[in-house]
């Protein structure tokens, strides 16, 4: 038998320059910053740079800069002029796409194939899309001349650093707000590179401010009285804390939180593409996806066939160096996250579910977890209820379509769901029954700037993307909705 081993095909990292230390980006220039902490490459644990820990003072300076920029420059520009800046940023993101992709893979651990083909092109697409809205806000369904809120405080997660940044900054700027953004503690580097893009695009000083740091920095941002609107993507736990913190204030908020999506496979599904969709649903981005299809619901009469094909397919998943163009599954983002995945997986073992992973060698250094499925899972297992946020799939079965819907909806979350069936009427029926903000039919994890994204129940408030996402950054002039 011929073996066809793919030789390593490494993307060169020489295209990126990483400074040994970074400060914050406030009022158009970089500060020195203080209390620096190390930011590491999760695939080999080497130190990439040192990131400043933003203090309440740093947040204060940044919010002031954003306020001045809002009042003196950005709110006075016409939509058409704002759009020009957004188009410029979008084009620079495209021009520097490879640089962003390599840096993202180094910092986050995700495969270069994904940062190159998904994250960075989508980030640019979000700026292009919202650039187009900037001079058409009168037609956003918010009445004539809807107005921006003012200064937006934005907190983004580590799973899609540059993409989440663009989801936040592009609509805010298009609508006429200025922003203070805090990237995640472990993945600040592409946000800091984006700060350089703002300089390159000659964006007026103070319109975009980036303050790095940890949860305390984020809390300071949320609590700052100069913030008019909060946009947060992250865990439900922190989302609840934010909701509590802003309850007595006039601050508006959109929260994009956790999920435990059901991926439902009916007996008439296109089996081979379904298997691809299952793999893409849970192993895309190492499962670090809030809308990941982490609960697989199989109709009992096809369960065996789907599982056996899924195992064959999982054995083909290439785990390894994120910069290798042939890698499918990269590194877990942090040791902390790895511990959480291990802990929840162990609960699966303890509670009697059956664990399976294909034989796969993982590198010695760095944070790694093999693609894993648990079969024999029921609704009562922790791994069927709690978000694992890793490459771990819980497999459940059902007998009738009604049962599938009941199980799918039996969760405090409601971010996304998947339906696999060749029968159009069944897809439409199921989509109407599912309590989830995003429903994919015969596909999974597809994103587009024009499509609103967000959750039901504890998966969040509001939508991002599309016209719906834009309205979160506008207030209705006529109803004077302050």
């Amino acid at each position: 038998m011929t073996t066809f081993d793919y030789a390593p095909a490494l993307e060169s990292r020489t295209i990126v320059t990483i400074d040994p230390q970074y400060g914050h980006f406030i009022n158009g220039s970089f500060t020195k910053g203080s209390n620096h902490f190390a930011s590491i490459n999760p695939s080999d644990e080497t130190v990439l740079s040192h990131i400043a820990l933003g203090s309440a003072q740093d947040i204060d300076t940044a919010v002031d800069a954003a306020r001045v920029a809002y009042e003196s420059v950005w709110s006075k520009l016409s939509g058409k002029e704002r759009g020009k800046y957004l188009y410029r940023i979008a084009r620079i993101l495209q021009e520097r796409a490879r640089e962003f992709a390599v840096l993202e893979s180094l910092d986050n651990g995700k495969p270069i194939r994904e940062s190159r083909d998904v994250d960075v092109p989508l980030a640019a697409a979000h700026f292009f899309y919202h650039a187009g809205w900037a001079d058409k806000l009168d037609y956003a369904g918010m009445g004539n001349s809807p107005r921006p809120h003012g200064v937006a405080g934005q907190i983004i997660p580590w799973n899609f650093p540059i993409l989440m940044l663009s989801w936040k900054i592009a609509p805010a700027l298009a609508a006429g707000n200025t922003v203070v953004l805090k990237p995640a503690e472990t993945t600040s580097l592409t946000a800091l590179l984006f700060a350089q893009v703002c300089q390159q695009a000659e964006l007026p000083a103070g319109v975009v401010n980036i303050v790095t740091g940890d949860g305390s920095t984020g809390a300071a941002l949320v609590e700052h009285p100069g913030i008019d609107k909060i946009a947060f993507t992250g865990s439900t736990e922190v989302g609840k804390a934010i909701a509590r913190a802003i309850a007595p204030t006039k601050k508006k908020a959109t929260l994009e939180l956790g999920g435990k999506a059901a991926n439902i496979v009916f007996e008439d599904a296109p089996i081979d593409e379904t298997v691809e969709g299952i793999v893409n649903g849970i192993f895309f981005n190492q499962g670090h996806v809030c809308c990941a299809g982490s609960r697989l619901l199989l109709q009992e009469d096809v369960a065996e066939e789907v599982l056996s094909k899924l195992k064959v397919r999982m054995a083909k998943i290439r785990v390894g160096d994120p910069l290798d163009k042939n890698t499918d599954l990269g590194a877990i983002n942090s040791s902390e996250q790895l511990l959480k995945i291990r802990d929840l997986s162990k609960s699966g073992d303890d509670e009697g579910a059956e664990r399976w992973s294909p034989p796969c060698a993982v590198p010695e250094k760095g944070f790694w977890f093999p693609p894993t499925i648990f079969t024999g899972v029921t609704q009562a297992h922790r791994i069927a209820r709690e978000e694992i946020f890793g490459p771990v799939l819980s497999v459940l079965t059902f007998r009738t379509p009604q049962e599938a819907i009941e199980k799918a909806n039996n969760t405090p979350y409601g971010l996304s769901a998947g339906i696999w069936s060749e029968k159009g009427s069944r897809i439409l029926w199921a989509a109407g029954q599912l309590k989830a903000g995003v429903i994919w039919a015969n596909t999974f994890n597809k994103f587009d700037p024009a499509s609103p994204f967000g959750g039901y129940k504890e998966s969040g408030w509001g939508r991002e993307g599309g016209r719906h996402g834009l309205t979160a950054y506008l207030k209705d002039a006529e109803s004077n909705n302050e």
Partner: protein
Amino acid sequence: MKYYGLVDGTEASLNNFLKSLPGVDQVGAEARAAMLGTRSIKTSSKKKAIDLAISMVDLTTLEGADTAGKVTALASKAVRPDPSDPTVPSVGAICVYNDMVSIARKHLDLVGGSHVPVAAVCTAFPSGRASMAVKIQDTLDAIEAGAGEIDMVIDRGAFLSGHLMDVFEEIVKIREVCGEKAHLKVILETGELVTYDNVRKASFLAMLAGADFIKTSTGKVAPAATPPVVLVMLEAVRDFYQITNKRIGVKPAGGIRNTKDAIKQLVLVNETAGPEWLTPSLFRIGASALLNDLLMQRMKMRDGYYASPTYVTID
């Protein structure tokens, strides 16, 4: 067991079997094929892949203008694709019209290519529009002239009008004619079947009827061997092996003109049917121009620079 015990030879059982196959989602199949197209094959694995691809080429000439001269030149090239480098393997077979078979066979034997089989296109290639008697005679002629492989076309008209049993019976008949003397490749002409559901259905139909290989296209209709079509066929042979324990070969033909495309095909094989299919006895690439591009890339890997095309023989 006849028809692998999966159908009993009646129209009802054939129709039931083919209807029970799961559908193919077009978007998903195309996305998977495109993703596999992004695999990056470099250095040592590229070198191996090029030699493997050369050994899988069914070097083809199927022109009205074919002559003995053209066919003998092709035969010489098939045995020693690069006369300056004896480490280059012979191709998988040469593929010609059936009146050229004896010329090809004789010349191959003459130049030390007795190991290279001759494949003949039969059954009123490329359209398949002739009586059964003519199709049988066509096949008999080719085998008698020394063809070791028969590339038959299916009756696409019958398939598209739902007369699946007619298509099945034709293949069964030609299989009987081939007997042990010739391998049977069944050309589905996927460009005329159009949908991936049809490709999957036709693949299973051909395998049940006794095909040794399923082949995408005649090369006379576009689109031909697109990656998603080949993906669906590779899934079919993989699934068929799961049921029957018998490995059927796959032959994409038409439109694969350069090394990059050929390597993409090998990646599809490796990650869909599996590495067991990475052998000329289970995977062939029907092509003419492809061979020279493979040779050029091979020279580039050996010498470190691109040679002038004059260093590669034209036929």
